[in-house]
């Protein structure tokens, strides 16, 4: 008997102006399996799946759905073919209710008007059938992350999807929530659905997938049954060489002193308490990892420390001196280095040249500027030095930052901060969206800085990263630190429980 394929993508090539995102990709998924599409950031996984979902048109190649050749011009066509996609960034409309979000595009009507009651019923039905708990009348902006994700899955099922694409679904979840999600996925599989899981995590792949395909630099390099492969093999395939996942934690011997202190910080937004008497101590020669589910106040901790938001109560001390009311530029000058969590939002001016970006925040320093006049020669020399030192791959430092890859962009941000001898480094999501090579590089740099006696606060959504690098870990939940201890005293499950407030 011929194996039945839900999805067959043949010789798919997708180009964006000069770069090739997918190069003659052949990718097929059997009916009723959970298939992991594995690869590093930037390998072309999302592009391939967006092509399947009709958001991109391939330059070359054909797509077959359930054996029939199809031209998928837009998501509407994909939906009609029974394909649904849960995007990494949720595609939800915050001010609308859960039910309204689910039915969008296929709204039940009563005469000329929209029928909200019917929408609610439908959502309740699906949610009960697959154990996807969501309150249909709650506004999306009030839902926790896990519920938002369940809502996205319900959206797909409401559209009668048989093929479900999930893009990095676990990135925003705690270990416990991940288990719940996997339960749902298994249930869906039992119900005959085909599931494609985009991920860069080996562990997940080994846990849930039936088959796995590895994508590297836009081409398929490996496809196998899960039972016939190993994490080591998959890792090698992903990166193209053997990798070691160990970073040596060398505890710093000399005395640790508190450098930056946040004392009983309070901050509210729209009358909701975001930071609730939160205190933190960041010491020299130490990496303090701040673990937590996104949206529990991490962003506000970063912005309070860097002076981007004012505190309602509490204070901030740098080496014992009160800096609570200092402007961002004065804090930078005082030695607080900031690697922003969102590189493209806070970290870089994409239209600026590499050179201009490398001095941002330090542009008023006497090295770069005298009496308001920029020292353009000094700046150019400095930029070339940093470019070499931090291995930024570019033609010259006059190139616009927008032209660089994520990893090289991040090297600009990191090079900028580390080259200015900060006393404290606030590193938020330092490796988000960069390739494995750059991750290793950035991790090593942070370790070097620690060994040189800097105080480092690491905020990361990747628990692995927190556990790998931190000497001490603090867990943030609903604007408070709920636990703080030596890193060795935590394991993944304990952290997970703390992060969700269930301990």
């Amino acid at each position, binding site marked *: 008997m011929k194996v039945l394929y839900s999805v067959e993508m043949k010789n798919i090539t997708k180009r964006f102006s000069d770069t090739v995102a997918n190069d003659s990709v052949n990718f097929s998924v059997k009916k009723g399996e959970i298939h992991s599409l594995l690869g590093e950031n930037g390998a072309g996984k999302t592009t391939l799946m967006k092509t399947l979902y009709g958001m991109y048109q391939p330059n070359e190649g054909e797509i077959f759905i359930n054996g029939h050749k199809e031209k998928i011009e837009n*998501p*509407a066509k994909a939906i*009609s073919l029974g394909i649904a*996609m849960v995007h990494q960034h949720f*595609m939800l409309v915050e001010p*609308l209710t859960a039910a309204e979000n689910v039915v*969008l595009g296929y709204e039940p*009507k009563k005469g000329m*008007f929209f029928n909200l009651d019917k929408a609610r019923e439908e959502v309740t039905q699906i949610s009960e059938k697959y154990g996807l708990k969501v309150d249909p009348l709650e506004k999306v902006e009030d839902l926790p992350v896990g519920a938002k994700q369940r809502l996205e899955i319900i959206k797909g099922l409401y559209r009668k999807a048989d093929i479900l694409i999930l893009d990095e679904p676990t990135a925003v979840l705690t270990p416990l929530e991940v288990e719940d999600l996997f339960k749902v996925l298994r249930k869906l599989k039992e119900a005959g659905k085909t599931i494609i899981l985009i991920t860069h995590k080996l562990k997940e792949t080994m846990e849930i997938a039936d088959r796995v395909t590895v994508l590297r630099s836009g081409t398929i390099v490996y496809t196998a049954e899960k039972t016939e492969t190993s994490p080591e093999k998959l890792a090698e395939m992903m990166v193209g060489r053997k990798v070691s996942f160990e970073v040596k934690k060398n505890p710093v011997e000399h005395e640790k002193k508190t450098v930056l202190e946040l004392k009983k910080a309070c901050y509210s937004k729209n009358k909701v308490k975001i930071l609730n008497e939160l205190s933190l101590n960041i010491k020299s020669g130490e990496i303090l990892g701040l673990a937590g589910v996104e949206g529990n106040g991490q962003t506000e901790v970063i912005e309070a420390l860097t002076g981007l938001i004012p505190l309602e109560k509490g204070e901030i001390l740098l080496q014992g001196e009160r800096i609570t009311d200092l402007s961002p530029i004065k804090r930078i000058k005082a030695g607080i280095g900031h690697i922003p969590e969102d590189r493209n939002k806070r970290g870089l001016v994409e239209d600026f040249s590499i050179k201009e970006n490398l001095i941002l925040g330090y542009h008023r320093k006497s090295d770069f500027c005298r009496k308001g006049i920029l020292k353009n020669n000094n700046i150019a020399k400095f930029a070339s030095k940093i470019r070499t030192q931090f291995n930024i791959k570019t033609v010259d430092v006059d190139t616009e930052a927008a032209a660089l890859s994520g990893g090289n962009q991040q090297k600009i941000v990191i090079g900028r901060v580390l080259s200015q001898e900060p006393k404290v480094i606030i590193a938020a999501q330092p490796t988000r969206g960069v390739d494995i090579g750059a991750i290793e590089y950035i991790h090593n740099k942070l370790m070097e800085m620690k060994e040189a006696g800097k105080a480092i606060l690491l905020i990361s959504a990747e628990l692995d990263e927190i556990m790998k690098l931190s000497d001490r870990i603090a867990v943030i939940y609903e604007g408070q630190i709920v636990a703080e201890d030596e890193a060795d005293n935590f394991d993944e499950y304990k952290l997970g429980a703390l992060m969700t407030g269930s301990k």
Partner: protein
Amino acid sequence: METDMGALIASLLASSLRIAIPIAFAALGSAFCELVGIVNIGLEGMMLAGAFAGVWGSYITGSAYLGLLFAVIAGALFALIHAVLTIRYKTDHIISGLGVNMLSLGLTTVLLQVIWGNRGKSCEVAGMGSISLPIIKDIPFLQDIIGNISPFFYLLLLAVVISWLVLYKTVFGLRVRVIGENPQAADTLGIDVYKIQFICVILSGILSAVGGAYLSIGDINIFGRDMVAGRGFIAMAATIFGGWNPLGAFGGSLLFGFAQSLQIRLQVFNIPVQFAQMLPYVITILVLAISNKNNKGPAASGKHFKRGEV
């Protein structure tokens, strides 16, 4: 004495309404546009086009109602330019709007000269006149306000109510609101974002042009160079003040109308005419300044939406 006061108030309200009509039409248009994420500075030019086309249509056909049809078409055409530029070609919304305004000013002025041989104004044409509805004209007080009023007023009421129903009670309205908040989400759900954006921008042009037509064939029955005089921008302010809601936009327009008509009364007190003239603009600034700062518009307003971008 009492009746005097009543008559005074009635006439004040009547003139407030008259002044509010063109602004309210454009404000409704602005609401539709901003709700799908397109900023429309070009309302001014679309109103001007409507004012001109109304007179022109009335001039060549002899019927003010056909003039109104001309206005609708003109408004739709100018809106189409803005829609193509901002949606199809991703032109900056503000610059595109300014271009539309300038194009409208240039075209209407040139055509004024071509058709009537005058740089300042057209000749007088047939207007829409005014109507008195049977019951209303017998209700005391109300009869002094709307007993005898331009048909544009009833058209406006209809437009406000329908706009509200469409936006908040229909599937189309739901989709409109979704696009203004998160066009990517709408796109991934198979909703044709571009289509709805086009519809709304063109709707805004039509509504603005009807407002503009009121200024010409609904009021003085001639077209004058640049006769819209900033009302398009005032309408934008009214929309913001009204929280991007048709009823609110109508309310905001009434407020401007009231302030303006009060100002006209004040001219009796020997205030130099220039101060009276600048009042609506001062009020606009004040209203914007006191509008709730947290009254945020649609999240995706003014941003370009490109398929597939996340």
